[in-house]
């Protein structure tokens, strides 16, 4: 087994950025990713990344918009760090080769996006995630960091209160191996595959959150899930970037009347509006034609995929849409340098919750978050590794892990199916823990999740191979999702108010007296324990 | 039918059998050829575009002056010219620049109206198959022939098959074989590369391609291969022995030029078509043909 100072788990934008930063800070670094970095969920991000570069813009104005989108649940210090660092990190991306769109002066162009009051979203047509990821991967290769691609981390090695590394299964060789490290950075992405429909890639199943939670770390604000308003109704999860609303696209109901002005409105409010329109009239559509053919040339990916997947031409017809689960605000609780409650364990990006996003992500903040905190946490992890005392890796853990995997592999399995369980889970989450929640619905959801968990416990992995055994990885991923589902539903049940993305039909108002606090979830005695964490006073 | 004839470099250089057979066949068909004598090499994909585009623009301008479309007898000439023509037609600003900087001092100007067509396309699109069929004197019954187009006659799509209808161009040689009475020994590589362009850069790969295509053709029982490109011919015929040596195969497959193939069906005898010039012996083909008439 090879030993590294910093082990980064997850090859998306945040993970790559963290790995590069850790290397620059002098650490020996390795990356583990269950898919190749260029196939991660970051590749499908479209709209853009925010930076206060405009003449009339400022970190303060940017911060203010972030607070509003987060419905006042954001951590002020974290937001300050973020908004002050964003410009320099985006310029770093440009200098490293991202082919951003330019304005007439040759500067980074910025488009209106979501509820940003200033145009501050830098973009590359509608393929921003793809381009940023590509350039990050280029620079990652420049650093010659060992990259373990198609390796699935099955557990974290935690001894006492410190993380000592990870154990992972290499899909190609089919072998389990230990990865001792002085710092482990989880950058494993979100978990919205928990919902169906979902805009996320198949592997966005919250494995990192589950690993951390199982090792004793805290998860925060898990009830806060952002739904994306403009997702193709016909094909599960194919989203059209919200940037189209900023450029002139309109949301129309079945009679052709457009929704009340939804430009510049936070996503959760757009989703609520669409939800109401659907309940009333049925189908809601997105009409992109008002944008005009010239401007629509900036959305080649949208045109291509809506046609290939949905069979529709955005130049000729409105496109039926409905909201779908998109990105979580909640995740592994960290401070502003990515530290979790376990020494040596860091988290960054969509799997982490450092208080930046509160109860709602400002559109365009996610990719910026990945690079701003990616570099910051990479540095912090390197620093931590230098200061950490040398500890030997508990090799018994690898044997334990072998046995655990052997136990779940068996020819004898119930007649049930992983996909069926996932399907039922996804639909129930969408219905009862979705855009609009209620006490009764949440109770039902928790009961149903329990019965799904029981069904899951009777399933075994029939395929005994370890080489490219996707039945095994699907099994483990479903386990993560079931664990997180219970946490999300519990946290949603617990928060008896409406704030940001969390909307309770039975508690429709915001309650700052009782609820100006985060929800923290820990594993205690085999079940979810919830606590309120009051917001830091500014 | 009259064309500004562009024979290219190889038809009078390394493949001197091509030029006279093409001229004879054109005459027999009644296609008038007015040769473009004072024009330059297309560049063949070797010269960079900033040099070859002006040279080709000049050729197009001269044909425009003559008021005639250009006919080629080489897939490479065809492809390189078609691509240059596409660029000059699609971008009027670019065309203006080339006119201004390179052609104006000669009093020439390319207006963007010239068409460039290979003999193979001329036969199907301008001349007409019925007319051809009426002139066939020696249907090549019993001969098995493999088509080999030459890449530049099939791609890139925007210059070669710009419309759905013109996709048919990819099958002309196949069809012609049937029209001339022969059977086709189809090969998977008929639209692939013969290896000629990498002869100096990577001889091993170049000869491997020759062995692959001619070997497959021979294996499928072909009497010969026909190609509309003399550069392909140089490699497939000229270097066949070296390809055999490299791969340890015995191939012995004669390669015919398109006009020679047409000529035999139109009644010319093998000597008139200069078959004796080929490196790989065409004796067997000749004896089969002489037994036909």
């Amino acid at each position, binding site marked *: 087994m090879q030993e590294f100072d910093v082990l980064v788990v997850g090859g998306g934008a945040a993970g790559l950025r963290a790995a590069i930063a850790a290397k620059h800070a002098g650490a020996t670094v390795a990356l583990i990713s269950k898919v190749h970095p260029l196939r991660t969920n970051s590749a499908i991000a479209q709209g853009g990344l925010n930076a206060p570069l405009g003449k009339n813009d400022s970190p303060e104005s940017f911060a203010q918009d972030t607070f509003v989108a987060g419905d006042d649940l954001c951590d002020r210090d974290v937001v300050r760090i973020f908004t002050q660092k964003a410009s320099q990190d985006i310029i770093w991306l440009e200098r490293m080769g991202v*082919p951003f769109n330019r304005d007439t002066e040759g500067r980074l162009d910025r488009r209106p996006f979501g509820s940003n009051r200033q145009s501050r979203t830098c973009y590359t047509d509608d393929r921003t995630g793809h381009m940023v990821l590509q350039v990050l991967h280029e620079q990652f290769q420049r650093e010659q960091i060992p990259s373990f691609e198609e390796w699935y981390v099955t557990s974290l090695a935690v001894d006492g209160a410190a993380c000592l590394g990870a154990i992972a299964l290499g899909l190609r060789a089919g072998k389990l191996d230990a990865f001792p490290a002085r710092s482990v950075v989880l950058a494993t992405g979100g978990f919205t595959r928990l919902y169906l429909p979902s805009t996320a890639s198949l592997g966005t199943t919250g494995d990192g959150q589950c690993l951390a939670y199982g090792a004793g770390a805290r998860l925060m604000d898990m009830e806060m899930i952002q739904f994306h308003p403009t997702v193709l109704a016909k094909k599960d999860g194919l989203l059209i970037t919200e940037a189209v609303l900023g450029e002139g696209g309109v949301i129309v109901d079945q009679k052709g009347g457009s929704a009340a002005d939804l430009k510049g409105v936070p996503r959760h409010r757009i989703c609520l509006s669409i939800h109401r329109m659907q309940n009333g009239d049925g189908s809601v559509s997105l009409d992109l034609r008002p944008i005009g053919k010239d401007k629509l040339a900036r959305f080649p990916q949208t045109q291509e995929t809506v046609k290939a997947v949905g069979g529709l031409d955005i130049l000729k017809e409105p496109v039926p849409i409905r909201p779908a689960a998109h990105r979580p605000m909640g995740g592994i609780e960290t401070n502003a340098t990515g530290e979790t409650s376990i020494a040596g364990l860091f988290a960054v990006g969509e799997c982490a919750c450092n208080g930046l996003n509160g109860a709602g992500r400002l559109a365009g903040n996610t990719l910026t978050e990945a690079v701003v905190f990616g570099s910051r946490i990479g540095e912090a992890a390197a620093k931590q590794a230098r200061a950490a005392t040398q500890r030997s890796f508990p090799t018994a853990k690898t044997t334990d892990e072998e046995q655990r995997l052997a136990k779940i592999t068996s020819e004898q399995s119930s007649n049930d199916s992983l996909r069926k369980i996932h399907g039922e889970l996804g639909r129930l989450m969408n219905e009862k823990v979705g855009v609009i929640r209620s006490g009764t619905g949440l109770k039902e959801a928790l009961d149903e999740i329990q019965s799904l968990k029981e069904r899951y416990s009777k399933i075994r992995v029939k395929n005994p191979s370890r080489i*490219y055994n996707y039945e095994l990885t699907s099994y483990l991923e479903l386990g993560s999702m079931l664990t997180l589902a219970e946490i999300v539903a519990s946290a949603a049940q617990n928060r008896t108010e409406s704030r940001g993305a969390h909307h309770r039909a039975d508690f429709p108002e915001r309650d700052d007296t009782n609820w100006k606090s985060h929800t923290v979830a820990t594993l205690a005695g085999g079940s979810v324990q919830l606590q309120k964490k009051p917001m830091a006073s500014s | 039918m009259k064309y500004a004839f562009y024979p290219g470099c190889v038809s009078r250089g*390394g493949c001197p059998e091509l030029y006279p057979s093409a001229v004879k066949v054109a005459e027999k068909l009644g296609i008038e050829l007015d040769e473009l004598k004072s024009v330059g090499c297309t560049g063949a994909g070797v010269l960079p575009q900033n040099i070859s585009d002006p*040279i080709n623009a000049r050729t197009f301008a001269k044909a425009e002056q003559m008021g005639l479309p250009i006919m080629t007898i080489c897939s490479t000439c065809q492809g390189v010219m078609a691509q240059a023509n596409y660029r000059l037609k699609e971008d009027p600003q670019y065309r203006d620049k080339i006119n201004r900087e*390179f052609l104006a001092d000669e009093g020439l100007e390319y207006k963007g109206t010239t068409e460039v067509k290979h003999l193979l396309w001329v036969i199907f699109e301008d001349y007409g198959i019925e007319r051809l069929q009426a002139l066939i004197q020696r249907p090549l019954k019993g001969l098995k022939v493999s088509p080999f187009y030459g890449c530049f006659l099939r791609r890139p799509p925007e210059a070669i098959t710009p419309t759905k209808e013109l996709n048919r161009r990819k099958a002309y040689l196949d069809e012609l074989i049937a029209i001339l009475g022969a059977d086709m020994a189809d090969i998977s590589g008929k639209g692939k590369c013969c290896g000629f362009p990498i002869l100096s850069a990577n001889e091993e790969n170049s000869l491997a391609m020759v062995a692959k295509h001619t070997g497959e053709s021979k294996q499928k029982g072909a009497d010969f291969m026909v190609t509309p490109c003399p550069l392909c011919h140089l490699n497939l015929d000229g270097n066949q*022995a070296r390809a055999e040596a490299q791969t340890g195969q015995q191939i012995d497959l004669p390669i015919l030029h398109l006009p020679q193939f047409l000529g035999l069906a139109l009644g010319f005898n093998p000597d008139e078509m200069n078959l004796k010039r080929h490196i790989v012996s065409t004796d067997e083909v000749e004896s089969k043909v002489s037994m036909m008439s």
Partner: protein
Amino acid sequence: MEVTFKVYRKDPEKDGKPGRSNYTVEVAESATVLDALLKIRDEVDSTLAFRASCAKGYCGECMVRVNGSARLCCTAKVPDYTKKGPEISLDPLRNIPVIKDLVFDFDAFLWNKIKAVKPWLESDGSSVNGENLLPDSQMQDMRKVMSCFNCGMCDEGCTVLPVDFNFLGPAALTKAYRLAFDPRNKNSREQVKIVEKPKGIWDCVHCYEADEHCPRGIEPTKRIVALRDKAYHAGITHETVARHHKSFAASVKESGWVDEGRLAVESEGLTNVKGLMKLLPTAAKALAKGKAPIPYMHAKRPDADRIKKIFEKAEQEEK
């Protein structure tokens, strides 16, 4: 609708020989091939191995051959492939070593080749002076080239790769274009030199198969041609190719057309006795058949001086 999927199988833990499994499943009219594969793995045969990630046509991970044609299986609609009958065959891409079932060795096929062209900008990233100021027209071309999502279709259709797997291939060379032509790269000259080495741009036969195969219209072959032109102007560093191109250009410049005899000789190099000896057998045969153009005994075409003028003007403009 009921469809039978005939899927390529290969098990590295058994005999590693290629085989086929037939699965008959019920799928919705709106199902994609990926939907069917996921269903098969879940309900029928959990040992089936295939890759997928975004499931929406963005990321390039799920390439397979459906009824012989390479494409993303997450956007392949089942009814489009059952018009001739309720059977669909699924195979890995051609010319790539297969690891297991539909999982092929993408490292050897593509990722390692991209690494080999040193795929990064030599840039310092310091934000002190703000962003590079550049017109959007320059970035537009970069966005086009960088929209490549590594699907591998260009490499799959390549003429050279079946003959020489070690050829870098259109995808990696398109990456090299991005690096050589990005105005922010301080290293573009080196970038071109890297791909001038054997197995690089000079090994490409510019057959334009890549352009025909690319689903995004990136035109990889044209990018390779542009790299070659750039190398020509900067001075070709591949010795044999440099000799060949120099000779070709010289004879067209002097006479208006190509002196093939001279070209054959000068490509080898006038002092390259071994190389010239290699030519002798073919030359002898050609001479005997009356088909050898005698080098240097090459008549000038009418208007050769006009062609020469074009050369001179173009060469002057390059400076």
